[in-house]
C-alpha cells in the first residue's frame, strides 16, 4: 500500500509539472494579453501600457515568468489575480461555493434518478420503460445543455413566470427557499445529461450482475426478490459506479461553463471563461492546477475506495 502510494505520488508530481508547463506556454501564446483591454481607453498611452507590463512582470522572458510562478506555487503562493487584485486562492474560493451548490444538487438528482432508471431498465429489460429510457438518454446526450437551458427559461420564466430566469438568489432575499427556487432549473438542466450517462452505466452494471451465479443461489435459497435486488444486485452493480463517480468528482468542483453562463450562475466555469478573456493568467493557471489536482485525486480516491469495498482487488 505504501509503495503504491509513493508510486502514485511521484506520477502525480510529474503529471502536474507537465500540465502546468503546457498550460502556461499555451496561455502565453495567445496574443494580446491582460493589458489589451486598456488599449482603447481614452488618454491611455503606450508608455502607460509599458509601465504596467513592467510592474506586472510581463516583460520578462517566458521561462523566467514560469519558473517564478512555479517556485511561488511550491511555496504555497498561488499568485494574485490581475483583474481582481486579490489572491488566486480567494478568487477560486469565492466561486467554489456556487459551483458546489449547483453541481452538488444536480449530482444528487442525477445519481438518484439515473440509478433508478438504470436499475429498472435492467430488471425490466426490453420493456416499454426500458425503450423509452434508452431513447430519452440518447436525446439528452445529443442535445446541448444550453438549448435545454434557453427553452427552460423561455417556458418557465418568460411565459409561465414560475421560476427565475437565472441568478443564484435574488439580491436582498437570500433565504433558503430563494436559493432552492433559483436552483431548480439549472440543476435539473445540468442533471439531464448526467442522468443519461448515469442510467446507461447503471443499466449495464446491473445487467452484468443480475445473471451471476450468486444471484441465482440467493433466489434458490428463497430470498425475496426485493432483498436480492437491494442487497445482492445493486450492491455489486455499484462497484464500477465508484470509478465513474471518481471521474466525475472534478467536474463537481470545476463547474459547468455553459449552464453557468445561461443561468448567470457565479461559479467556477464562468470564472475560467472570464479569466481567459481578460488574460488573467494567474487565475487561469490556478484553475488549471486546481482541476488537474482534482482529476488526479478523484481517480486516486476512486481506486482506493474500490479496493476497500471490493476485497478481490489489491493495490500493488
Amino acid at each position, binding site marked *: 500500500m505504501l509503495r503504491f502510494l509513493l508510486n502514485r505520488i511521484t506520477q502525480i508530481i510529474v503529471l502536474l509539472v507537465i500540465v502546468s508547463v503546457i498550460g502556461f506556454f499555451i496561455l502565453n501564446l495567445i496574443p494580446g494579453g491582460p493589458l*489589451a483591454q486598456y488599449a482603447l481607453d481614452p488618454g491611455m498611452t503606450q508608455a502607460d501600457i509599458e509601465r504596467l507590463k513592467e510592474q506586472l512582470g510581463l516583460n520578462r522572458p517566458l521561462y523566467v515568468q514560469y519558473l517564478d510562478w512555479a517556485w511561488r506555487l511550491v511555496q504555497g503562493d498561488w499568485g494574485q489575480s490581475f483583474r481582481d*487584485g486579490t489572491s488566486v486562492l480567494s478568487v477560486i474560493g469565492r466561486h467554489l461555493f456556487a459551483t458546489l451548490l449547483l453541481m452538488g444538487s444536480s449530482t444528487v438528482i442525477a445519481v438518484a434518478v439515473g440509478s433508478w432508471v438504470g436499475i429498472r431498465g435492467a430488471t425490466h429489460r426490453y420493456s416499454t420503460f426500458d425503450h423509452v429510457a434508452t431513447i430519452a438518454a440518447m436525446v439528452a446526450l445529443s442535445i446541448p445543455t444550453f438549448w435545454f437551458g434557453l427553452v427552460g427559461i423561455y417556458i418557465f420564466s418568460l411565459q409561465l413566470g414560475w421560476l427565475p430566469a437565472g441568478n443564484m438568489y*435574488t439580491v*436582498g432575499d437570500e433565504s433558503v*427557499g430563494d436559493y432552492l427556487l433559483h436552483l431548480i432549473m439549472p440543476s435539473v438542466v445540468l442533471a439531464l445529461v448526467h442522468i443519461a450517462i448515469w442510467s446507461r452505466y447503471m443499466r449495464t452494471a446491473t445487467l452484468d450482475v443480475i445473471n451471476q451465479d450468486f444471484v441465482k443461489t440467493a433466489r434458490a435459497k428463497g430470498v425475496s426478490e426485493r432483498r436480492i435486488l437491494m442487497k445482492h444486485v445493486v450492491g455489486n452493480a455499484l462497484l464500477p459506479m465508484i470509478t465513474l463517480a471518481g471521474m466525475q468528482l472534478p467536474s463537481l468542483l470545476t463547474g459547468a461553463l455553459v449552464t453557468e453562463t445561461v443561468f448567470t450562475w457565479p461559479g467556477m466555469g464562468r470564472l475560467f471563461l472570464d479569466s481567459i478573456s481578460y488574460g488573467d493568467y494567474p487565475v487561469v493557471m490556478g484553475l488549471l492546477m486546481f482541476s488537474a489536482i482534482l482529476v488526479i485525486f478523484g481517480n486516486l480516491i476512486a481506486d482506493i475506495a474500490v479496493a476497500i469495498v471490493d476485497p478481490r482487488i489489491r493495490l500493488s
Partner: protein
Amino acid sequence: MSESTTRRGFDRRKILAALAVGGGGVIAWNLVGRPDGGSQASTTAMSTADGVDSVVVGLSQEPTVFNPLMVHGEVDDGVLFSLFDPLVRMDPDGLVQPHLAAEVPSLENGGISEDGLRWRVRLRDDVRWHDGRPFTADDVKFTLELITDPDFRAWRTSGHTLVRDIEVVSPTELTWRMEEPFAPYLSFLTETFIVPRHTFENEADPNNAAFNQAPIGTGPFKWGARMAGDHLELVANPDYFGEGPYLDLLIFKYIPDITVLYTQFKSGGIDLVGQVYISPDNYDEARKLPGMVVEPVLASSVESFYLNLARPQFRELAVRQALYAALDREAIIGSLYHGVPQITETFMPQQSFYHNPDLPVQEYNPEKARAILDAAGWRPGSDGIREKNGVRLAFENSTTSGDHLREMVQQYLQQTFREIGAEMTIANLPPAVMWGDFWTQSRFDSVIVGSTYLIGADPDVTNRLHSKSITAQGGSGSNNAQYKNSEVDALLDKAARTFDVEERRKLYFRVQEIVRHDLPLLPIFQYKNVFGRSADIKGFEPNSNTRTESWNAASWYLANGDKQPGGERDPVRTSSRAGPVPRLLSQKKEG
C-alpha cells in the same frame, strides 16, 4: 413585464419554493421568506414594505477594481463614481463644475496662472470620508503623488506626470506647479478620484492595500458587500455633502451574456441596463415594453472605418476619398443599426462645445468613387480589382469577432467596395488579440473601431492624431492610423497650451477641417447607447462626458420611494437631456 406582473410572478415562485422545501404550504412558509417583508425586496426598483429603496444595475462585465487610481476598465467607473468624488466634475453639457473643490480653477479666479504653470485649488470644508474622518488638502496631495509613484499600478498618468511641488497651504487649499502648460489637465481631474491618505498610512504596498477591497470614499454611497462573480452592493451615505442619495441600496449585478442581460431586464430581474446597454437590434422591441423607459442617448465614441496610412493602398488621398464615397452610411445606420446611431463627419462628439458643425457632408456615390479612382490612375486588373504601380487595391479589414452588427457592416462594405474595384477581406480577431499589439503596433490594414477621442470632455486629441503619438514609429500614443500632418501637429501643440476656451475652439475647428479632408479615418457614425430602465426610477440623467450611466446615482430616486428630492413626492423633475437636473451641491438631502 410590468412591476405588478413581476410581483404576482414572484408570489407564485414563493409558493413553488415552499413546496420545494417541505411539500407543505403553510409550515414551510416561514422557512422561505423573511418575516419582515424581505420577500418583496427582490422585486427591484421598489420601495419595499421594510422601506428599502433599491435599484439593480445590470452590467455585462464585472466591476473588479475598487481602488479608483489603479488601472481599471470602463465598467468599474459606475461603481467608482458612486463611492468617490473628483475635485471637479464634467456635467452633461460638457462644462466643468466644482465638486470636492469649492471652485473650478481658472484664469479668471486666479486658480490657474496666466502662463498656465501655477495651479491653486480651494476645497470644500464640509466633506467627510465614509469612516468619519475629515477630507483635507493632504488627501489630494497624497492622491496626486500616489498616481505617479513608480511602483504603483496606476491607471493613465498623462498630465499627472507634469505636476511638481504640491504644497498644502491649509486644510482647504493647495497649490502645485506644472512642468509645462497643459490645458486638458482640468479634464483629467474630472476622472481623478481622491482617496483617503489615512487608509494607506500603514500599508507597505498600495497595490495590495486592504483599502482596495473595502474602499473608503467621500461619495454618496458606501461600500456594502461584494459577491464575486455575481454582484456588488453599495449602501447610502447619509452624510454625503452633495445632493442625495435618495436610494438606500445601489446594486451592480454582473450578467455576462448580453442576451441574458436583456432577458432579465424584461423579466424584471434588473432595473437599469448598464454597459453594454441594449443592443440596437433589440431597440424596436424594448421601446414598447410597458413600464420601461428605453431611449437612445448620444455617446462620445465614434465608429469609423480606420485605415493604416502606412499601407501603400491607403497612402493616396484619392483612395481614401473613393472608399468614403462608397460608404453607404445611411444604409448602415438605417438598416443594420435600426436608425439608432447618429451620422457624423468628425471624431468630435456632437454634444461637445468643440464640435465643428460646418464640415462638408459626404454622400454615398459609387459613381463618384469610381471616377476618383479612374482619375488617380487606379486601373481595374483582369479580376476587376484596381491596381496602380503594382499595388492592388486589396486589403484586410478586422474587428472584434462576435460583434454580429459589425460583421454585417463588413459584409455589406465588402460588396460595395467590390463594386468600385476594391477587394476587402474580412479577418476578425478576438478582443484580447485585436486590441493587443495588432492594434497598438499598427499591424492591421484597416479596422472598424468605435473610439472615444476625448478625455472627459476635453477636445485634446494629441494622443490620437499627433505624429508624435505613432507607437509603430517609436512614438507614444494611440495614433495607430500613423497619420501625419504638420499643421495638425502645430495646432494640437498650440491648443494644449491655450486656456481660453473660445481660442481653443477655433483651433480644434481647424483640426477637424483638416482631418475631414485628409480622411485618416472614415467616420461611419457617432454611437448612441440604448439606455433602458424601469419607469419607476426618477432623477436619472445620462452624461456622455463620462464613461458610465451611473455617474450620478446620488440623484436617483424611486417614484414611490421614501426619500425624494426636496422631501416631496412626484416632483416635476424628470430625466431628459433637454432639462438637466440642476446641481444643488450646497443643498442637503431632504432640505
